[in-house]
């Protein structure tokens, strides 16, 4: 049991991982859900990137503050305003583009935070076992029971209007139990494997084992669950904004819906009501499809079965 053995093992694990990734990619790209999901996400990404263009063309296209001096009320789509204007005369199309930017920001940051937290907790619980494990999993039970949206509502009642980053933080803090559970069981099964035993015998510290051996094997799962977390993060932020508790300085799609609703335009202005709702739903759908396609990659049983016995 010299130093050579565990290191070789790690290297073998790593290149294995890359090969797995390439194989996974080919399965992923064949799946219609994966293809559709990627296409949609790229589309939204383009929207987000293009959101800087309209204000650059003319200040009246600024989503939050830009007001068309000639039109000070809600109008239907025209050449000047592709999706019409809202009740203050602001361009809806540029608001939509800006909303894409916010959606990605919120979705990805919150999901990232959730996954980092969930993976860390899951790995620790799985690896440490016993008391630490029980404690963490009980904590997970409690957090999982909490309706995130309503809790954030309470917080905003107490602490005043919340800013977008605070919202992202809280969402990130609440969704980790789902991830940690899966990571924990994965860690538990990995713990039994011989290469972990070998590393331990070679004198690796617990931290080292966790980071160099367990984490690379657990990360694909983390990423899978990250896609699902993006969907819930976006939905929660949109719901908050819809109810009027979002960050008043940001133009998110939920905020747009709030304006339509609260200003009584929802029955009169379909060009205003429909686009933000469609966007929220579609981006949620696309990340969900992405997640399902990745699911198939990670769980070979889900792949199209071979015929014959």
């Amino acid at each position, binding site marked *: 049991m010299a130093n050579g053995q565990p290191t070789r093992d790690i290297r073998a694990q790593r290149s294995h991982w890359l090969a797995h990734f390439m194989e996974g990619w080919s399965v992923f790209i064949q799946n219609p859900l994966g293809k559709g999901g990627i296409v949609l996400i790229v589309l939204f990404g383009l929207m987000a990137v293009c959101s800087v263009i309209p204000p650059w063309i003319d200040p009246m296209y600024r989503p939050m503050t830009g007001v068309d001096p000639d039109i000070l009320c809600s109008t239907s789509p025209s050449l000047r305003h592709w999706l019409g204007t809202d009740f203050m005369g602001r361009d809806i199309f540029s608001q939509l583009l800006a909303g894409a930017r916010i959606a990605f920001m919120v979705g990805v940051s919150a999901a990232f935070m959730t996954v980092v937290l969930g993976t860390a907790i899951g790995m620790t619980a799985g690896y440490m076992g016993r008391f630490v494990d029980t404690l963490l999993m009980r904590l997970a039970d409690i957090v999982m029971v909490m309706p995130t*949206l309503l809790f954030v509502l309470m917080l905003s009642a107490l602490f005043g209007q919340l800013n977008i980053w605070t919202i992202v933080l809280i969402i990130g803090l609440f969704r980790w139990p789902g991830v940690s559970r899966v990571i924990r069981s994965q860690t538990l099964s990995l713990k039994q494997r011989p290469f972990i035993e070998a590393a331990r015998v070679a004198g690796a510290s617990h931290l080292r084992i966790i980071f160099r051996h367990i984490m690379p094997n657990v990360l694909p799962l983390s990423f899978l669950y990250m896609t699902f977390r993006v969907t819930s993060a976006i939905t929660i932020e949109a719901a908050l904004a819809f109810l009027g508790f979002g960050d008043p300085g940001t133009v998110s799609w939920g905020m747009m819906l709030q304006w339509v609703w609260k200003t009584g335009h929802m029955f009169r202005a379909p060009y205003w009501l429909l686009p933000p709702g469609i966007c929220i739903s579609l981006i949620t759908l696309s990340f969900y499809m992405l997640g399902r396609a990745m699911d198939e990659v990670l769980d070979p049983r889900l792949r199209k079965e071979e015929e014959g016995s």
Partner: protein
Amino acid sequence: MELKRFIFRRIIQVVVIFFIILTALFLLFRLAPGDPVDRMVDPTMTPEDAERLVAVLGLDQPLWTQYTVYVKNFFRGEFGSSFHYGQPVEKILWARLPNTILLFTTSILLSALVGIALGKVAAWRKGSKVDTWLTIGSLVTHTVFLPWLALLLIWIFSYRLGWFPITGIISEEVWLDPDAGFMRKALDVGYHMVLPLTTLFLIHVGASLLVMRSSMLDTLKEDYILTARAKGLTDKEVRNRHAARNAALPVVTGVGLSLAFSINGGALTETVFTWPGIGRELVFAVSHSDYPLAQAAFLLIAIVVLISNVVVDVLYAYLDPRIRY
């Protein structure tokens, strides 16, 4: 008998969790910026009333005493007085509770049962047009944005077509009519419930359907399905009596896991449809800084979620003998 012990253990767990939430809320209220007293006592009250309330709620005492008073009050049902309604909070909430439970329970049951039935069909006809449409339909309804869906439904069915009322749980005339019997009132409530129920139903049925579908596909590969066929049972009997019975279990688990998500949806639905339930009260209270009402509403919602969790767990244990024995 195992079942009784199981229920008992779950209830203990739930009580502990609730206490933790209770305490967390307490600390949160005290930690937030501003004077806690302002939060619990309506500034428009007379000074004498205010003083009395402060004494009842123990707001002038040291922290530990405050906590014990807080807990005691909770069990006595004493939550203080709502700023907005000017009435004791518990009276308001008790009136709202049945409305929420009605909507919540019906939507969950309906979406689970229909999801199971349709998921079974989708799995059995895997690859066919029916299956494709059901799967696509589930994906779409599962990811559509709930408040927006609610607004759409109102727009199309209430505003444009005039088939359903736009808001509320019951029409004024019916509610106030002294001659209207229980049946008449119940029907009217049902009539008002159609759109909110449809919204919640659509959002949740997709998840159950997809879970049932994949669970059914897995179950159909099991050995005991082969046994059932070998015994000479018809395909229908095999599907329903053996496969579906087993495949439905993960759906129950799934429903249990998504209860918090469901209650979020419930609150949003209640708000858009002006359905007088606890969720709506919470949103309302928060937007009007009505702290006593908000706090109590939140706690009540937490209780509803916790109890639902226990109910689902018990149901699962009842359905799966491997847990019980």
